[in-house]
């Protein structure tokens, strides 16, 4: 089973055409292994992207270097997954 320890989901809200363009270009950087949960759609619309741990630093440096602000929507994806699994187990025991 694939684990997602250290993966984060960043939320980027492009506020200019230039920022939107930069974010769209991220989709072509295959080596970063980015998983766009919400793809770039338009100005003011959130872009949510799951970032594997090894790509976190390079991506954050890239965003900051281009003056693109972001927030961290999910600090650690694996932690949420484990909560989800725990909840499912609890439910099946209840059943």
């Amino acid at each position, binding site marked *: 089973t694939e684990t997602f320890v250290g993966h984060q989901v960043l*939320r980027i809200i492009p506020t200019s055409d230039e920022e939107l363009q930069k974010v769209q270009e991220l989709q072509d950087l295959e080596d970063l292994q980015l998983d766009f949960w919400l793809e770039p759609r338009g100005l003011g619309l959130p872009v949510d992207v799951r970032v594997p741990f090894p790509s976190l630093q390079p991506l954050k440096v890239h965003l900051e270097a281009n003056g693109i602000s972001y927030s961290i929507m999910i600090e650690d994806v694996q932690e949420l997954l484990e909560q989800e699994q725990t909840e499912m187990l609890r439910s099946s025991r209840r059943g």
Partner: protein
Amino acid sequence: LPLSTSTFDYSSYHTLDEIYNFMDLLVAENPNLVSKLEIGRSTENRPLYVLKFSKGGSNRPAFWIDTGIHSREWVTQASGVWFAKKIVQDHENDQVLASLLDTMDIFLEIVTNPDGFAFTHTKNRMWRKTRSKHSGSICVGVDPNRNWDAGFGGSGASSNPCSETYHGPYANSEPEVKAIVDFVKSHGNIKAFVSIHSYSQLLLYPYGYTRTPVPDQKELHEISEKAVAALTSLYGTQYKYGSIITTIYQASGGTIDWTYDQGIKYSFTFELRDTGRYGFLLPAKQIIPAAEETWLALQVIMQHTLDNPY
């Protein structure tokens, strides 16, 4: 496994086997209303089940709902289970449902992408696509919402087999898509088609592959406005609505573009919760509220379909 659909836990996520078991229980408990059809087999040879809710007659006008075409969008399959129980519970005492079922059938495909769904439970929770392997591509899977014969292969889908929006080698290459295409064509009397995704809280209508407005744009927009108002009235969840291409982005080969072009005027896509805290990992305690509010919107579409036969 629960012994009845009354003891089934609707506020939790379930595995494929648990959902298939739920379906069998629902059919067994309601033999005069619910039946289970197998409309095809997936790439990995899993059955593609559709629940049919009918008070009788043959080939009556029908209302189609599907969930789970993108396997990681777990709140949608869970909502589909809740809808199935809701239809059974309310089919006599709910005015909209009772009058709809007097003249129409309801088809509900809860796990539209079973291979992908099983994979999210066993190997990769983030899996979105099918699990097909096409010669010449090093990656697995096709985006089943880019594989329909509506603007297929146009911009708004990827030709890269490793992309999450890979459209596949040709339209209907995915058996999960082909099964629905064949079913819709052979039935020939489906009047509304709702395909349910998550997340980002949107109610969308065609087109996604072109900027050309659909001929019925005004009517679909008005229905969307009413449906979203009903949805928001329950818990205040804010939705946007509009055509796919004007509201989110260009997407070619999409489900409801194809169904609309088949003549199914009332074609809609929902993007359920979340607003941006959990994404696809929506906590299970939000399943029922999400299903309840979505149900109110579905009832608006049902009522309009019933009141406006075509």
